């Protein structure tokens, strides 16, 4: 009850204009909830980021045969100027943007549908389905990869003959299909995560509202669209943003598909692949860092716009 001290005796009339107001103290205490996090955040995120940012302002140069020590010099914004002019980078970005426009809404709609469906089924059912639907998310990446390569394989996988039964000749590894194949894998792996976050927000809906709507004769679909969906919007906005970020940083799947469709997926196919290549292959960490920053800024702007749009609909 040590708290009693901090609570004023007459809470209805908080002291205004005192040397330390009741509201100020409350705010301070509220802020103190975030302090443990902030301490760790500063140490484990902000400091390393600051160290990394510095790198983007320098450049390394060699001379002669390139076998001696490289000289590092401060070049200011030069790496950024180059990044802005880098056609390969922007082409890659255009590619993933186009991909994101298709895959992100698809993932989101499907995840929302699943969250709503689980929410609308009996609790016992819900708990069963939830586990199954979360399994792809829990599947380790290396296993998911191995599985899909097998399923997609034109010569040994089951999907190609399956589509043949419907007269469709599908080669998942062909140039034209690669994006579809990558997108499908991403959707499969991402459903569970999105669904879990969205489902959480559905738990906060007051049962009375839904019961009232039902008494008014609203259909289940109507209830889902006009009552439940608005409650989900914040979590949809969050997962959309995370999805966009993940999409723009697309690396694993295209990297994998490089072997099966090398004529299509080049080393600079996506911005993330290009950054990786610059940092760890070409060995230009300075430029790679500058590219990462440009990419982060663009994603920031895109997320802000989408966030605004969603809030407006709200």
């Amino acid at each position, binding site marked *: 009850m040590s708290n009693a001290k901090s609570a004023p005796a007459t809470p209805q009339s908080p002291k205004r204009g005192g040397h330390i107001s009741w509201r100020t103290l409350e705010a301070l205490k509220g802020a103190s909830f975030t302090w443990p996090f902030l301490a760790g955040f500063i140490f484990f995120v902000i400091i390393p980021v600051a160290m990394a940012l510095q790198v983007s302002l320098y450049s390394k140069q060699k001379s002669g045969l390139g076998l001696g020590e490289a000289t590092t010099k401060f070049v200011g914004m030069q790496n950024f100027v180059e990044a802005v002019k880098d056609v390969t980078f922007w082409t890659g970005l255009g590619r993933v943007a186009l991909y994101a426009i298709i895959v992100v809404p698809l993932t989101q709609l499907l995840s929302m549908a699943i969250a709503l469906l689980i929410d609308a089924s009996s609790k016992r059912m819900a708990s069963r389905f939830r586990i199954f639907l979360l399994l792809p998310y829990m*599947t380790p990446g290396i296993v998911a990869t191995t599985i899909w390569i097998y399923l997609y394989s034109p010569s040994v996988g089951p999907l190609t003959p399956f589509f043949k039964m419907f007269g469709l000749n599908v080669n998942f590894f062909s140039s034209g299909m690669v994006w579809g194949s990558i997108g499908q894998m991403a959707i499969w792996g991402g459903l569970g995560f999105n669904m879990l976050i969205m489902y*959480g927000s559905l738990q906060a809906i007051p049962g009375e509202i839904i019961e009232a709507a039902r008494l008014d004769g609203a259909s289940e679909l109507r209830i889902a669209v006009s009552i439940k969906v608005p409650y989900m919007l914040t979590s949809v906005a969050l997962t959309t943003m995370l999805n966009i970020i993940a999409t723009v940083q697309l690396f694993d799947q295209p990297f994998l598909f490089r072997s099966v469709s090398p004529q299509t997926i080049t080393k600079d196919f996506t911005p993330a692949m290009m950054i990786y290549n610059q940092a760890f292959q070409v060995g230009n960490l300075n430029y790679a860092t500058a590219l990462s920053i440009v990419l982060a800024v663009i994603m920031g702007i895109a997320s802000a716009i989408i966030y605004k749009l969603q809030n407006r609909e709200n």
Partner: protein
Amino acid sequence: MSAATQQSTGIKKSLFDRGDKRRASQEVGESTANQAKGASKWGVLAVLIILTVYAVGPLWWLIVSVTKNKQQLYTTNGLWFAESFNLFKNLHDLFTYQDGIYGQWLWNTIWISLVCSAGVTIITVTAGYGLAKYKFHTRGLIMGMIIISFLIPGTLLTVPSFILFNKVGLYDTWWVMLLPGMFTPMNVYLAKVYAEGSVPTELMEAARVDGAGEYRIFLQISSRLLVTPAATIFLLSFVGNWNSFMWPMIFLKDYHKWTVMLGLQSWIARGTDSQYDLTILVLTGAFISMIPVVLLMIALQRYWKSGVTVGSLK
């Protein structure tokens, strides 16, 4: 006791009573308001079943594969069992290969994931709660930093983190596995979104009127309303920890400290680079490694069932 105090106590009581009742009713399998009624119930079920097949179907390959031996893996139908049943032999190999290191990795992963997830849940739920329910002047700044931090590609941070952790003596210690993961900005954001939806400001005001301090309000009232988000964050972070391999790969030197996923990654890499393909061991290891996550999911079920109704206050 003032009238206001009585009133707020009343609200608190009714709130929890309602929660308890709901919980009780769910346990006997009664329906709740959110779930669909009538014919649409069957529609919901049918769609859920189709989606479940989509989610789980691909994992069938994994189940079949872990019962095969090395020869059968690529030479028999991937979707059906081979003549001989090798699951037990594979399990034996798994737990004896490299002097039985898999068991050690599994144990490391279990306790690291549990401790780290518990830590991240406490730290981020309190931080998210502070950000959601209190107005203090650094709030906007913190939220801004959190959102910007989503955009930072992880690869950017490995070199600076390595330098930093070496300086402060975190490198190659258990702490490096536990601490950095406890300050995930995404989880703070998630906790904030959920806290906004599930902790009614009116309830906190009423408790203040009662003379409760801010910390006591959190411990005795708000934290109980945040069980669902906490469970969600715990699960997400557990799965994240479970599947992480980059972090231990970079920051742990001694392979006895590795996690399961890093160990499996290393087996798969070594298998493709040398004479002896370890794919079957990797698949068996991955299969076994999914079991604890599924068990955890089942254990956390009850926290999703007990969504507390908060609407009556609005």
